[in-house]
């Protein structure tokens, strides 16, 4: 038997962090966006042990202010792409600048400096990731996916998919299907 699960990563991570915080008896306040306020002073070696515990879940404490802002940006972008329910009628540059309270020029420079890629590319990457997961996990057609992700046409999505990954959505679908078949019947 084989089942598929859908995960809410934000919820899962928050739960892990909260449990770990309680385990360490920290007084804290969750501020959202991966920001936590510790309502007490914590010795640096305790903090190190806390970080080490989180590391086993792939979570880590980030220190650099720039890195933090970039992380907020990434979270905002991922939220924007994956939550298609919220209707964002403005351009993504305006949306991000407003949401984070910095000019888009500043955010854009900072993002490129820290991540070696541009915000625009990151948005495209996330949209294509979302498309891939929809192709792999749902029965939606590419036309339906294009509509869901606000592409003007299915051709536009197809082209962007091919430009980003080097393969066509159809080839992607075929490869994933063959991989599954191979996993079910190893040679």
């Amino acid at each position, binding site marked *: 038997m084989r089942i598929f699960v859908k995960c809410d990563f934000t919820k899962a991570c928050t739960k892990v962090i909260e449990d770990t915080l309680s385990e360490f008896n920290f007084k804290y306040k969750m501020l959202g966006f991966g920001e936590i306020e510790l309502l007490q002073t914590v010795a640096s070696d305790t903090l190190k042990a806390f970080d080490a515990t989180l590391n086993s879940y792939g979570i880590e404490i980030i220190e650099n202010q720039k*890195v933090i802002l970039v992380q907020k940006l990434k979270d905002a972008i991922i939220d924007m792409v994956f939550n298609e329910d919220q209707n964002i009628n403005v351009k993504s540059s305006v949306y991000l600048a407003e949401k984070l309270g910095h000019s888009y020029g500043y955010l854009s420079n900072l993002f490129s400096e820290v991540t070696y890629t541009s915000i625009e590319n990151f948005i495209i*990457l996330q949209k294509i990731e979302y498309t891939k*997961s929809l192709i792999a996990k749902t029965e939606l057609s590419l036309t339906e996916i294009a509509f869901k992700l606000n592409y003007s046409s299915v051709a536009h999505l197809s082209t962007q998919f091919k430009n980003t990954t080097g*393969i066509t959505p159809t080839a992607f679908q075929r490869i994933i299907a063959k991989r599954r078949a191979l996993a079910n019947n190893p040679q």
Partner: protein
Amino acid sequence: MQENFTHVVLADDDEDDRLFFTEAFDELKIKTKVETYKDGVDLMHWLIQTDVLIPNILFLDLNMPKKSGLECLKEIKKLDKFKNMAIAIYSTSSSEEDIENTFVNGANIYIKKPNDFKTLIKVLSDVVTINWQYHTNGLNRDNFLLRL
């Protein structure tokens, strides 16, 4: 607390290709640590040691004496500890059948070896940048397919 370099390994029997590969990485903005092996047997011998530092990206030439890139790929895919390592096929072949077959067997990236050094730098830079996105943003590696 964040690793600040990408660890890449190449297995290729052609000495010139290994040299170009290493030199191309010296030209990139992203910090990398590059190691090379001369064939599949040599690579697998090193890779299956217990205390090995698992590379972020492994580049495999397809046609190598003793053990081919595809054989290495199949062996590695059976081992759970390498599930977070991206595997790139680095080959002169551009046959659609080869490409699809390596993807189906679990490769993440397929690179047709470029003919000039400048393109090589560009291609390797793209690979490392995109892999970095997967590495730092927790993207689903099962869906990581890239052809250059």
